[in-house]
């Protein structure tokens, strides 16, 4: 009687692991080919409030699981959509009637897999853009502990050959953000910010950008529309900045 039960300790976990493996390989598949043009248009139109999709400008694989589709509507609006491959199908994660750059991330905001996408109105004639990762300079003194946070202002410049496109988040940005998050996490000891948060708001990361015309002047976006749309993915706003909001801009080339 005793001996029979001992086998259970080996057999039960083995069955569970095998069942799990079978389920995983049956349900979770590698990305299949992307949707047809008709499918794409259909799915976008279901979400798109302002008219209908007239032209798909591009189908761009950001990586093997994320596809970015800038499009133009029949009302001359330039919008964006993106799909992510989840388990066994392509899932629509965002439709926006605005082409202003946004940061999208698959994988719950993992800094390794984030992309900036945009679809500006061609009439705005933007030649290049500079994107920024910023964080406020901060100091904090509490219970004898001093914390200094340097101002972060990292930039990445990109020329626009077309009015739509994408860019992977620069590696330096994700390295710094990950390091910062790790350094702030208290050991499972005193949660540093339990009382502090109310009195000492922590600085946050922010994304920004400045568009330029071919005369190297800051572009005024008259035609590109503001943010609106749906998103079930993780999108972060990229604020359009004024050069006067940047530090040390006299040193910039």
């Amino acid at each position, binding site marked *: 009687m005793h001996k029979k039960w001992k086998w259970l300790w080996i057999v039960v976990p083995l069955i569970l692991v095998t069942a799990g493996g079978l389920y995983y390989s049956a349900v979770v598949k590698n990305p299949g080919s992307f949707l047809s043009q008709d499918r794409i248009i259909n799915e976008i139109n279901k979400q798109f409030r302002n008219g209908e999709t007239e032209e798909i400008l591009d189908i761009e694989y950001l990586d093997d699981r994320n596809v970015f589709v800038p499009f133009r509507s029949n009302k001359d609006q330039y919008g964006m959509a993106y799909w992510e491959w989840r388990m066994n199908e392509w899932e629509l994660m965002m439709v926006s009637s605005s082409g202003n750059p946004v940061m999208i991330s698959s994988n719950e905001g993992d800094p390794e897999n984030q992309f900036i996408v945009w679809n500006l109105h061609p009439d705005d004639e933007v030649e290049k853009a500079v994107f920024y990762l910023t964080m406020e*300079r*901060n*100091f*904090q*003194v509490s219970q004898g*502990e*001093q*914390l*200094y946070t*340097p*101002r*972060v*202002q*990292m*930039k990445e410049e990109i020329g626009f050959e077309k009015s739509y496109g994408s860019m992977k988040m620069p590696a*330096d940005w994700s*390295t*710094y953000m990950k*390091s*910062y998050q*790790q*350094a*702030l*996490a*208290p*050991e*499972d*000891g*005193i949660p*540093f*910010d339990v009382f502090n948060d109310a009195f000492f708001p922590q600085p946050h990361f922010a994304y920004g950008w400045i568009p330029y015309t071919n005369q190297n002047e800051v572009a005024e976006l008259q035609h590109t529309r503001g943010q609106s749309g749906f998103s079930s993915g993780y999108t972060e706003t990229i604020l359009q900045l004024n050069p*006067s*909001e*940047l*530090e*040390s*801009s*006299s*040193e*910039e080339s």
Partner: protein
Amino acid sequence: MFSLVESLELILGWSIILFIALHLYRKAENLPSIWKVAIAIAVGLFSFSINIPVAGELISLPILPLGVWALNFFLRKRERSWERYRPFAWLGFGANFVFLILALLAIPLQNLIYPEDRLTTYVSDTENASLIVLHPSADDSAALDKKILLEQLEISNQQAVQSEEWYYDTVMDHEMEDRNERFPYQLAEVSAKWGSGFSPLVFIEEDGQGIVVMKEAEQKYFRLEHSILQRGES
């Protein structure tokens, strides 16, 4: 990052519990079943505890043996069962004290192997060290001199972080266009001493002779004798 002292705590703690459990098991008159013993110990572990800050750590002090009481309640109809498993439930509760003592001992041990006042504790493996420029006021042409970095790690001396002074130095009387960030570089791809459990963020001062190390929401500042930055032609 992996913490050596924490792992030793866990291994030693559970070894002690296991040792006592074996002892109790052998002494037992009618052999209790092993998996019920394990459950009794696990349940006995539950307690109402309060967390007390000790030397920057939170130590958990058990007050009420909730697990033991719960087991007692569920087994109150079966006196024989309760008598057999009661010592193991108390062992479970006692385990909390074992870990408490080990946690207290770990504090000086951690500081002995990984002294908090030495830069080498936080910046140890510099083989793949690289520079990330964080602010436009940094010298773009600056490169990291790894040889000098290695030497200077030993010679560094700790000073106070003067967060408020540094902040106002940069901001006061300087408009946005001509602000120079005091710590415009990150020293990336370095790791702390193996087993320390730290994943620090390391900033380099613009003169290449200051290092701020940040870990677990704390910062330490070290000054070096020579700059670790090589200036190129600017």
